[in-house]
């Protein structure tokens, strides 16, 4: 008479899901992001604000002065006919703002000036405390 035989499955020792494909995928993703990305630290300066619409020039209380900075093609700012460097422009604007804190400063750049020159002048004006700063440009009329 044959005896009853019971067979048992051997329990698996390893993990149920292999981790190796997951590691492969993650490594590929990691290398992809590291190779294709360039990491830049960038800031922004508003050029057009929502409240900068033409109606904003409506009634302003009291009298406020206006100064115009012309920016030549060589990148030198000219205020009231006088070429200035960054420190001189800073002093002149601070003197202007000391008398009229809400004075409007207009920048009229030459088309040949570089973007860096304009940004530098805007930077100096903002640091000097100018609150009403606008960049204007001349347009040829047909």
């Amino acid at each position, binding site marked *: 008479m044959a005896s009853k035989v019971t067979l048992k499955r051997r329990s698996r*020792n390893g993990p149920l899901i292999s981790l190796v494909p997951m590691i492969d995928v993650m490594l590929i993703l990691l290398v992809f992001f590291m190779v294709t990305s360039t990491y830049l*630290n960038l*800031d*922004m300066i508003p050029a*057009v604000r929502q409240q900068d619409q033409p109606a904003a020039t409506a009634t302003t209380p009291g009298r406020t002065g206006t100064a115009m900075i012309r920016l030549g093609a060589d990148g030198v700012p000219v205020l009231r006919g006088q070429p200035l460097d960054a420190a001189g422009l800073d002093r002149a604007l601070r003197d202007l703002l000391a008398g009229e804190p809400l004075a409007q400063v207009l920048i009229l750049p030459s*088309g040949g000036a570089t973007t860096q020159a304009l940004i530098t002048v805007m930077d100096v004006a903002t640091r000097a405390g100018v609150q009403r700063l606008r960049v204007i440009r001349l347009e040829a009329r047909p």
Partner: protein
Amino acid sequence: MKLRRPAPAQHSETIIALIDVVLFLLIFFMLIGRMDATAPFEVSPPLATTGSDMPAGGATLAIAADGALALDGQALDRTTLDSRLAALLAEDPDLRLRVNAHKAAELRHVLPLVGAAEAMGFRDVVLVVTPADQP
């Protein structure tokens, strides 16, 4: 008679540490950057000390030093740019336009585009700058 020690099965623990490190690096690189298409030419934004942090979102108009244009990484000419900007603005009227001009780009290539975007109806146009230390 030779007796051999069974090899210690400790590979899985080492692999788990590797996965941890790789996963941390992956998440770090994914979180720290904002995915943004780069222009097909070199653009080095001007230095500025008074810029503010740039939030994500918006379209990026890149302007090369010689005036070449690219919108969200795709090179195009002026007429195509106008139609593409109009289409973007129709989709989202509050879209921010980031003007990423090379620092040596002449303003005759930059300011007319800012003016055109404003005339087109863009209410939020910003100039991209590289933060610099206070002089």
